[in-house]
């Protein structure tokens, strides 16, 4: 145990504070202290991407981040991208294109896709495939996921798809 630390950051758009062991993993803080369970622990060692969250707009792995690293940051989990009654265009595209089977990888995939589309609003298939190459999916075979990301890009650009 480390000395508890006061940690303040933005979480899905609102300011939050907690006092906790700064050496806890960020994924545990999100799931246990804030009840946000979109970020999932697939491997706990950086290899699957299921725990990805946006930190200041960059997709990072919450299983390899410490609570102390949250301080002062702006964090978005898949819950913060959109809600079931108001989904993000990326989430809609995943549903429409059959890119979700068991759903375990989906939050991490949508976070990686959100970073990609913010940086490169019109990626080609290869760029989308590369951007998602740190997110593993056991179910879909990836084709539909890449379809969904390209369609979400088109929707965000205001194009029909």
């Amino acid at each position, binding site marked *: 145990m480390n000395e508890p630390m006061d940690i303040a950051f933005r979480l899905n758009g609102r300011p939050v504070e907690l006092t906790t062991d700064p050496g806890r993993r960020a994924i545990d803080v999100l799931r246990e202290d804030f009840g946000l369970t979109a970020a999932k622990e697939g491997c706990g060692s950086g*290899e699957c991407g299921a725990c990805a969250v946006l930190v200041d707009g960059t997709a*990072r*792995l919450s299983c390899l*981040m*410490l609570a102390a690293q949250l301080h002062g940051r702006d964090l978005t989990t898949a819950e913060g991208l959109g809600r079931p009654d108001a989904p993000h265009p990326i989430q809609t595209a995943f549903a429409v294109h059959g890119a979700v089977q068991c759903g375990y990888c989906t939050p991490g995939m949508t976070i990686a896709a959100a970073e990609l589309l913010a940086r490169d609003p019109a990626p080609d298939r290869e760029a989308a495939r590369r951007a998602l*190459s740190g997110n593993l999916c056991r179910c879909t075979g990836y084709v539909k996921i890449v379809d969904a990301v390209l369609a979400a890009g088109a929707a965000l650009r205001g194009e029909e798809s």
Partner: protein
Amino acid sequence: MLDDGLSPMAGGTDLLVPGRKAAGRGVALLEGLPGLDGVAMTAQGLRLGALASLAALERHPVIRERLPVLAQAIACLGSPLIRNMGTMGGNLVTASPAGDTLPALLVLEAVVELASRDGRRHLPVAEFLLGPGRTALGPGEIVAAVRIALPPPGASQHFEKVGRRDALAIAVASLAALIVRDEAGRVVEARLAVGSLAPTARRCPSAEAALPGRRLDREALLEAGRRIRDEISPKGDLRATAAYRREMAGRLPLRLLTLA
């Protein structure tokens, strides 16, 4: 720079992996320390801050244009998520024989800038890497930056990694090359370094000496490959046997035919 007994942490992609060191215990976060981030152009070349993310380095226009061997090496490292978090300082201090940036830094003759409460010192990468997981970092010392003089614009640069799949594969063998040729296409200077084929990433001076005066044809590259085989000391592990690595090492230079 640091209190005794604390492990400095940059991106955490080595330090926080379960089973390595103590996750979350006795860690000092380097983020926020001044002078460790970003890429700066200096009179001597580029200064890459130890804390700059690998993703930021990979996208940096001067690195892409003038240090393509480094940009290519970074693009092979881990996955986009790992590169968003991982840093060059972390890759250097981890000092894995398979560390992907290391062969590229060796052919670029990069210099490591070390900082401690007592001041700064500079060491060539080849002198910084002492063995698997071992570096010349002293107690209380951190890597502040990596300095790289820009090679001549006409130099050919290439990084090749043999792994078992595209993303998230640790190198079975890798080769970095920087080659300067004259107008007739004959090699003036060749720098070659390999990864995963010895206790540290290393230059291959005997293979380098085989190339000057020659064109980069099949015969010259096979000769360089034979010499690389004699210079390395590969080990077998889960990913490949020592014999396979030695075989692979001899063929790696053939990939440079694409530069010809």
